[in-house]
């Protein structure tokens, strides 16, 4: 016995007049009328009110207010663009001005608003609206939750209301078509689990996996749909085309020979029609919409070609009287095979095209899905979208770092190769930066999240690469201009080849004219031309990202292969950009270790970069340093202090003169060190000059190799620096740079670039992107050498994530490889079309008697665009001649 949910009558299930499925349950009805009533609002009957309120975490409410929340409620939400302290007051004033707000405080440091409000008078959405009006944005997490068996429009309202009643939810909409709830909420106020509970509280089940919402997934889905559609159409077309082909050759087969031509024609017509109008419908639909836009594309050509062949065949089949004897030919096989072959081409093309974006997909796949954070003293796993700036995140060995941050406690080594291209794991301890998506190798550590969501290094890299893929290379301009005229011109060629063959051609003129016109239309392939550049750029930029090279635009990628001069900033580019201890010279009274220990002990309290270099140098040598007494810094001279009971003085010549220390020939040593580009500092102990410590900005270990490689690429390498000529020359000698621009003020760097450009050179500038910004912008290609996370350096055209100069060589190699690839593609498609079209028109016929079959033409056309993409995909195998990875 079952109960009719509408009238309440008990009926036998097998006797039910109607049944309905709703949310996984079958309902039985005594009459059609009950069923119809049910259809009107299935939710109401499936969940009669009294039982519909299970013990909820969040009770469903028709008022949009969680009853558990009556009375003042506390909420905390981030405001993302809080960039000035005065904004704090503005937002507080706005919030306090709203009805139902009892208390509102905005913390500038944390970027969060703390509000106490009455949920019956005001909703979070209202607050968000008010803040938005004032020009600020409430930071929310957006997520989509799949809802199972969502059938009726009224159910939508229940779920939406339940979600909105959940504290922390800003917006909730349920889409019945996609079977998804689209929720925006304040992370930290609620969790995905609570949102799920809110949906389940009204009787629905949720999909266990949070639906990914990235455009890539949507794109991937539409590409898959396209692929499936093409595959079905192709399969259908190829089977029927094979039968039609068999029938065409029927006159040679003993069994089929008996069938009269006219009947054979009709059978072929029946078989070909669905091929043309179902499998081939996409061409006709496409052609028609293009036509409405007064434009013409590949679809136009295919539709005209197959349409003409088909129409002629139809006339020959049904109105043979219109055609003279001997011209009653049909081209059903041609029509069906062309459609099948072109679909096959598109199928292969769709598959290959999916691979061009492999690099981006790989990057996206690197993202961790969940993070373990500490909230209220407890460790909880949350989706990474919910991680907030400031959260303490725990990472165990073997796990991925979920977001960017700074290590708070613990030690470990991290594999950062996926971001920087650096293959050796990097040691990390408290205070070190960690990058999201890198893999924790050895130890467990906790870090504080500093960048989440769109701001993480990985997201920025992905955005940058995507943006670059959407830009156009100047080389494409010509192809674009040609594409604009291509199709109409091919149509004209087809018209005139028909006319010429009809008027001047040999018998049977009409058939020759028709076949050549169709062949011309089919062989022309505007797609190959259009695909030539973008696909290569897509693969090339993706390949760059894999190697830690972020190319900002296709134009930069193109210009990079034309470079003939490369200007390297010294500090931070050729060198490490920070001084290191290089030499310790003693005059006999002390050992090197003792002198260094004493000198470094003095400097432990100084914050000068040179002092830090000495301290660091001493520490790496394992020296135990003591705290100095009576430390005094004398500006422009040096420092004095007492260490271990001795009077220590560190400084320049003037300092030594002041304490009347005799130098005992140390001056020549100091001069030698200065000649080498180092900064020497005299050390005096108890008024006696005891030695010299020298520091210098040291050259990165692979700079020399990278510069040698750049020279091998035929580039003139120039070093630019603010240092004096002597220091600059010393560094230049070390790394093998021939031309040095020394003593250049930072603001004059751009001018120096301009001067080089006036010499007619195509100049690249490589710098750290911060104080070199104008020079980077002035150069034809500006390359910024980043340091890991700083990927979005504005002024640069190319960013090298890893701080090695080798990346410059790799970038230029990649540019050359990509441009070579593009040129092959463009050349190939130009040649293909400019040879294919005349041959199809029958240009070779008068000389060699060669006429192309339209079937061959369609195979060639299908192959040509597949070839272009396959060629672009070869770039995936790009191997830099110099490895950016060590």
């Amino acid at each position: 016995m079952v109960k009719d949910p509408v009238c309440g009558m008990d009926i036998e299930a097998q006797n039910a007049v109607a049944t309905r499925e709703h949310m996984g349950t079958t309902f039985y009805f005594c009459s059609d009328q009950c069923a119809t009533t049910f259809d009107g609002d299935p939710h109401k009957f499936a969940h009669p009110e009294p039982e519909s309120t299970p013990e909820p975490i969040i009770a469903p409410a028709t008022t949009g207010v969680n009853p558990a929340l009556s009375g003042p409620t506390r909420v905390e939400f981030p405001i993302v663009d809080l960039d000035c302290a005065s904004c704090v007051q503005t937002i507080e004033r706005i919030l306090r001005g709203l009805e139902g707000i009892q208390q509102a405080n905005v913390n500038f440091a944390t970027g969060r608003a703390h509000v106490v409000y009455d949920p019956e008078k005001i909703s979070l959405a209202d607050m968000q609206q008010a803040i938005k009006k004032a020009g600020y944005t409430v930071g929310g997490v957006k997520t989509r939750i799949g809802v199972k068996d969502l059938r009726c429009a009224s159910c939508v309202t229940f779920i939406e209301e339940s979600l909105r009643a959940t504290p922390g939810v800003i917006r909730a909409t349920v889409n019945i078509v996609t079977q998804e709830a689209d929720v925006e909420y304040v992370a930290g106020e609620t969790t995905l689990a609570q949102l799920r509970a809110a949906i389940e509280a009204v009787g629905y089940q949720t999909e266990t996996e949070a639906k990914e919402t990235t455009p890539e997934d949507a794109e991937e889905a539409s590409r898959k749909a396209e692929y499936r559609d093409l595959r079905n159409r192709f399969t259908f077309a190829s089977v029927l085309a094979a039968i039609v082909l068999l029938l065409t050759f029927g006159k040679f087969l003993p069994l089929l020979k008996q069938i009269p031509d006219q009947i054979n024609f009709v059978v072929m017509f029946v078989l070909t029609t669905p091929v043309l109008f179902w499998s081939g419908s996409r061409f006709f639909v496409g052609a028609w919409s293009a036509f409405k836009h007064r434009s013409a594309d590949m679809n136009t050509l295919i539709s005209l070609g197959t349409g003409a062949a088909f129409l002629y065949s139809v006339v020959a089949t049904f109105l043979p009287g219109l055609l003279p004897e001997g011209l009653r030919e049909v081209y059903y096989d041609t029509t069906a095979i062309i459609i099948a072959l072109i679909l096959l081409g598109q199928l292969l093309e769709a598959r290959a095209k999916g691979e061009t974006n492999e690099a981006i997909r790989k990057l996206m796949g690197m993202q961790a899905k969940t993070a373990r954070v500490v909230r209220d003293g407890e460790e909880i796993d949350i989706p990474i979208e919910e991680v907030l700036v400031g959260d303490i995140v725990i990472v165990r060995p073997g796990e991925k770092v979920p977001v960017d941050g700074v290590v708070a406690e613990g030690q470990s080594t991290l594999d950062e190769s996926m971001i920087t291209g650096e293959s050796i794991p990097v040691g990390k301890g408290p205070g070190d930066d960690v990058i999201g998506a890198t893999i924790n190798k050895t130890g467990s550590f906790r870090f504080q999240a500093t960048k989440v969501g769109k701001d993480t290094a990985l997201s920025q890299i992905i955005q940058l690469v995507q943006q670059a893929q959407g830009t156009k290379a100047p080389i494409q301009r010509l192809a674009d201009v040609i594409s604009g005229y291509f199709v109409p011109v091919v149509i004209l060629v087809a018209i005139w080849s028909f006319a010429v063959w009809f008027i001047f051609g040999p018998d049977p003129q009409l058939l020759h004219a028709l076949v050549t016109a169709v062949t011309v239309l089919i062989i022309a392939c505007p797609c190959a031309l259009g695909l030539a550049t973008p696909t290569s750029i897509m693969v090339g930029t993706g390949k760059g990202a894999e190697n830690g090279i972020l190319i900002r635009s296709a134009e930069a990628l193109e210009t990079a292969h034309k470079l003939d001069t490369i200007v390297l900033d010294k500090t931070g580019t050729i060198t490490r950009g920070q001084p290191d201890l290089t030499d310790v010279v003693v005059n006999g009274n002390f050992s090197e270790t003792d002198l260094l220990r004493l000198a470094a002990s003095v400097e432990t309290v100084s914050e000068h970069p040179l002092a830090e270099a000495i301290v660091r140098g001493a520490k790496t040598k394992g020296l135990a340093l003591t705290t100095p007494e009576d430390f005094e810094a004398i500006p422009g001279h040096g420092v004095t202090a007492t260490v271990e009971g001795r009077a220590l003085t560190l400084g320049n010549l003037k300092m030594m003169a002041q304490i009347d220390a005799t130098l005992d020939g140390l001056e020549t040593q100091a001069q030698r060190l200065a000649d080498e580009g180092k900064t020497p500092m005299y050390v005096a102990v108890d008024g006696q000059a005891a030695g010299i410590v020298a520091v210098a900005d040291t050259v990165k270990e692979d700079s020399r190799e990278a510069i040698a490689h750049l020279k091998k690429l035929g580039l003139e390498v120039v070093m630019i620096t603010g240092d004096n000529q002597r220091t600059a020359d010393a560094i230049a000698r070390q790394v093998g740079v021939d031309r040095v621009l020394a003593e250049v003020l930072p603001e004059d760097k751009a001018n120096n670039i301009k001067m080089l450009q006036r010499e007619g050179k195509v100049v690249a500038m490589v710098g750290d992107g911060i104080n070199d910004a104008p020079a980077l912008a002035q150069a034809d290609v500006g390359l910024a050498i980043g340091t890991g996370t700083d990927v979005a350096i504005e002024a640069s055209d190319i960013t090298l994530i890893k701080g090695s100069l080798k990346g410059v060589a790799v970038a230029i190699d990649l540019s050359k490889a990509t441009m070579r690839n593009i040129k092959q593609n463009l050349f190939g498609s130009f040649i293909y079309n400019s040879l294919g079209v005349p041959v199809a028109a029958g240009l070779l016929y008068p000389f060699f008697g060669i006429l192309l079959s339209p079937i061959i033409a369609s195979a060639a056309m299908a192959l040509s665009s597949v070839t272009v993409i396959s060629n672009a995909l070869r770039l995936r195998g790009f191997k830099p001649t110099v490895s950016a990875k060590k």
Partner: protein
Amino acid sequence: MSIAQISVFFGALALSILVVWYFFLSKKEGVHVAAASGVQETNIIVKGGYTPDVLVVKAGQPVRLNFTRQETASCSEMVLFPDFDKSAKLPTGETVTIEFTPEKPGEYDFQCQMGMLHGKIIVED
């Protein structure tokens, strides 16, 4: 020449003129984009072309274009505004918004990545 041949010749000539006129010479009417609360906003359908494909906007005012791609053909999966350095992927069925502010009057083209579909933005003073 037979009558048939002569008529084919003139037929071809007439068709050629028609093709040249239809694709190259005839002018397209631009759609004026109305401004609401300071933003000039309009929806564009992507299906074998951009509908509308010629837009007339005013200089100096932000323009917001909501693209909806209603086909799966991969030609149109990206829209580019080279003059404004904007581009976007258009997943089928989703509305993707592109915003920019044209500062100088003039004609700016937008197109799909392969250059098969074209549209134009006419910026007036």
